[in-house]
Structures are given as structure tokens and as C-alpha cells.
């Protein structure tokens, strides 16, 4: 499907790598930053703060993907590569669908990545999880 308005496998994987790099940098900061700052000030971070930060760090990827897909349809990787997630009718994703899509992708990454192969023959370049959640990944700018 040359010249398609849907993002292909290379673009989607590249955007996913950008998001992974961002989260790799941010999640440890979220998990360890506040306790370290607390420890620097008072000497020892309380247990509840450490637990809270661990939970926030664990939830951060789901919130990152879910909220951005819901809000704009674009994560940072999507912004760089000009892709956006939409429903099959072109409308924005709702919050439940976005969070579920993110949760499935993060909890079952192998299935997620394996399902990306579907992009290669699907007419609308949909991956397995796109078929499951009724979504498509559109290319925002197409100058070629």
C-alpha cells in the first residue's frame, strides 16, 4: 500500500522505540527521585513515599500511553514520526479504550509485538491490537 495514509511497521516501531526511551528515562526518576530528594534533606525517606513512588512509576507507562492516546492520539514517538491513533471511523479514542489498549500492550508486550506483523498485509495497516480495539494508526503528514 504505497502512499497509504496509515502508518506502517517501520514508522510504528520507530515511534514505539522513542516512547520506550522516554519512559526508560522518566520511570526511574519517578521511582527514585522524590525519595532521594527526601533523603538528601532529612536523612531517610519514609516507606510510604518509596511505595507511592514505586506505584506511580509502575502506573506511569499506562497513564502515559492511555492519556496521550485519549487526549491527542499522539505520544512523543507519534509526534516525532507524525502518527496518531484513532478509532476506525476517524474519531478520537475514549479514555477506557485508550487505557485498555495501553494496559494490554504493556502487560502482554510479546503478544503486542507479534501482533504488529499484521500491519504488513492488513489493508489499513492494522496490528492485532488495532483489530482488537477497533483502532487505526494514521499518518499525520504525508508529503511524499
Amino acid at each position: 500500500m504505497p502512499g497509504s495514509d496509515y502508518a506502517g511497521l517501520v514508522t510504528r516501531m520507530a515511534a514505539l522505540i522513542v516512547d520506550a526511551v522516554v519512559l526508560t528515562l522518566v520511570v526511574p526518576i519517578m521511582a527514585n527521585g522524590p525519595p532521594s530528594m527526601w533523603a538528601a534533606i532529612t536523612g531517610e525517606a519514609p516507606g510510604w513515599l518509596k511505595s507511592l513512588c514505586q506505584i506511580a512509576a509502575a502506573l506511569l507507562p499506562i497513564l502515559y500511553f492511555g492519556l496521550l492516546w485519549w487526549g491527542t492520539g499522539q505520544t512523543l514517538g507519534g509526534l516525532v514520526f507524525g502518527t496518531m491513533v484513532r478509532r476506525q471511523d476517524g474519531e478520537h479514542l475514549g479514555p477506557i479504550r485508550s487505557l485498555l489498549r495501553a494496559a494490554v500492550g504493556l502487560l502482554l508486550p510479546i503478544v503486542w509485538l507479534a501482533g504488529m506483523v499484521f500491519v504488513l498485509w492488513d489493508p489499513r495497516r492494522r496490528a492485532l491490537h488495532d483489530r482488537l480495539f477497533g483502532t487505526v494508526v494514521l499518518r499525520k503528514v504525508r508529503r511524499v
Partner: protein
Amino acid sequence: MNERAPLGRLALGATVLAGQRLRLLGKPVPETLAVLVGVAERGRDTARHALRRAEDTAKKARDTAKNVSPRPPKRVREFLDEARSRGTKTIRVGQLEAKGWFARTMDDSIRWAERNVIPRVVDDMTPHIVKNVVPKVISGVMPQIRTQVVPMIIEDLSKDERIRRLIAEQSHGIVTEATEELQENSARADDRLEDSFRKLFKA
């Protein structure tokens, strides 16, 4: 005006011009001055032609006595009118001659200076200025420029909204261009990968 002007009239014209430039004299020239000049000129003419007129003096004196004695005020008035007219004319001519003389003198002086003086002065002064003056000026001024002027210019430029906008636009343009190129490349890669996949499975 081409013939050489009498020195006295030239001096008179120059004096009147100077007086008018310095606002000591009004325009036109005061009548008193014109009368004085006229009287003086007439006196000069009288003295100059005294010998020639000496023969007729007696006869003129008799005629004058006949004509003037009964009407002395009219004679005096005519004399003053003639003196004023003559003085005014003399002053005007003197002014014109002085103006012309000044203009010619200034033009000649400037031409002479341009031709003879200025080139020589420039030729003589340039090596001296380049060797001695300029290095001293630069060595004296450069520290001031470095410490005071350049930081001020940089600060002004950095605070200038137009410069900031220009830099922001350029940066934004570069980022946008790079992003668009990246997107085009990834789109081409998508197409190539799918083409290869289809060829592989068709074969």
C-alpha cells in the same frame, strides 16, 4: 564686474556686508550712511577735479549765489538727495563687488588647497597615522570595546524581540524540516518493507 574693483569701494562693500551679517546694519542700508558715503564720494570727486574746476569757480559761484541765495533750503535738499542716491548706489555696487570678490577668492583658495595642500597633507599624514596613531587608538579603545561595548551590544541583541523571534523561527524551521524528513524516510521504509514482504510471499 569683470574689471578690477576699486579697493576703497571693495572695502566699503565688505564692511557693509560684514555689518549686515553681524546684524549691526539693517537692510536696506540706513540713509544716513548712504548720505555720508555720497558726501564723501562727492568730496573726493570734488578734490580730484578741483584744479579743472578752479577756472569756473568764480563764474559758478556767481551763478550759485544768484540761484541759491534766494532758496537755500532747496539747494541743501537737492544736495542731500543727490548724496543719498549716490551713496546708496556706491554701497550697492560695493556690496556686489565684495560678494563677487569673496566668492572668487574662496573658490580659488579651495581649488588651490585641493590641488596643492590637501593631497600633500594626506600623503604625509597617512603613514604617520597608520604607524603611530591608529595602533595607539586601537590599543586604547579595544579593551573598552571588549569590556563595555560588546557585552552591551550582545545584551541588546539578546533582548531584541526581533532577533529572538528570528532565532526561534530558524530553530523551529530546522526542527520541523528534520522531523518532516524523518517522517518521509520512515514512510518510504514502510512502503519498501511491505513491498518486499508481498514479493516474498508471492514468490
